[in-house]
């Protein structure tokens, strides 16, 4: 990918579940290193968009280019460069954080030393051997963040990254998933102020359709709030 090429380029993206269009006509370009904030009420198509970008769902129409690869054809090329923090933590509940992270480190070919660095960073070194099922939702979210960034991805897809985190934890994970990470980011958030605070580009979805696409500087909270009306 050249310096000028966008990290994400979508053109008329569509995805259906049966007869229902979960996503229709979504088009945008996101430069490398920039942050896209996605807003919309429940069922608006945000998670579907995230899963398409993560190569987990095939688009039914339109074009999607992610990190220089055309989806779904080049999904295998780019998926190791994507970090997904989904609504579910994608962790085995009976395994400990260390065991979960060691498993993912092996799949991604990451040295296991990074696991300790990450656990230390998010303040979980002391609970690293407890089963995930015994952790609070906030602590599990910290482990999920470690999993998402374990392989130092170029693109971070974040569904409510700060959900269940206390202010200290938010500060702790900011270098990993915040602007300081230097990654291209797509963030789903229901916290409009926080989402806008992170964004360079804003996408609004309603019933799967793109109803808003603006650079952050051209938009205010009231406009975003209308999406939920």
């Amino acid at each position, binding site marked *: 990918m050249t310096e000028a090429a966008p990290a994400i380029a979508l053109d008329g993206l569509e995805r259906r579940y049966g007869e229902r269009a979960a996503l229709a006509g979504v088009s945008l370009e996101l430069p490398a290193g920039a942050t896209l904030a996605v807003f919309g009420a429940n069922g608006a198509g945000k998670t579907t968009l995230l899963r398409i970008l993560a190569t*987990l*769902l095939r688009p039914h129409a339109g074009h999607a280019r992610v990190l220089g690869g055309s989806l779904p054809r080049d999904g295998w090329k780019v998926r190791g460069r994507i970090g997904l923090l989904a609504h579910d933590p*994608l*962790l*085995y509940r009976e*395994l400990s954080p260390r*065991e979960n992270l060691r498993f993912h480190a*092996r799949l*991604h070919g990451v040295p296991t030393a990074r696991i300790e660095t990450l656990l230390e960073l998010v303040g979980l070194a002391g609970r690293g051997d407890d089963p995930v099922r015994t952790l609070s939702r906030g602590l599990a979210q910290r482990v999920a963040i470690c999993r998402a960034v374990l392989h130092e991805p170029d693109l971070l897809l974040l569904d409510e990254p700060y959900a269940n985190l206390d202010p200290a934890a938010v500060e702790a994970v900011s270098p990993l998933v915040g602007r300081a990470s230097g990654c291209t980011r797509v963030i789903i958030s229901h916290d409009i102020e926080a989402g806008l605070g992170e964004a360079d580009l804003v996408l609004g979805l309603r019933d799967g359709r793109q109803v808003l696409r603006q650079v952050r500087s051209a938009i205010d909270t009231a406009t975003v709030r209308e999406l939920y009306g």
Partner: protein
Amino acid sequence: MSTAGAVAALLRKDLRLELRTRESVPAMLLFSVSTFVIFRFGLDRETLAGDLAAGVLWVTLLFAAVLGINRLFVAEREEGGFDAFLLAPVDRTAMLWAKALLLFAFLTAVELAAVPVYSVLLLGPSPFQALPGLAGLLVLANAGIAVVGTLVAALAIQTRARDLIVPLLALPLLLPIVIAGAQATAPLFAPAGAEPLPGRWLTVLGLYDVIFGLVAFAVFDFLLED
């Protein structure tokens, strides 16, 4: 990462999960032993030999296998393991081989305990003469059950009716294994002592393994697609 490395990582994780939760192997074993007891009283026979002994053993092992097949992908589905695996830059067939090896290990573990129990509870002839032949048959059969079971489990886990789909698909697909296994085992359990293994049925089991191994390799990728 290489496919072999990914298979090893998945297998290690799954074995650790089974050791921690003990959800599959104990249930399969308990089921097998209970079925032997039911046969003992249901048939009202203290010992079995020949065709009947072979049939009871293979039918019991087949139904026990269905229990393991049913649970094979549950952690991946319920705890997001599929998504996490699909995001990794590894060959997707690594999941097929890892789960097939896991099921093979589960079946072997169950048989290591269930066959001696069967010998004590029901089998008339001495099992010692039959052991080498039976062990070879079980290895061949386990390989086939593991591959087909993984394929069926991957298909069924995508549906809401997993508990129904697994037996409905697995039992007819695994029927050739039961037929070949029982036919090959019957001479081993002959009342007068173990007779030689019939090579024809060993060939059937071997061919079944190869054919379904290739089919699974060809279609597994598509089962993981959305």
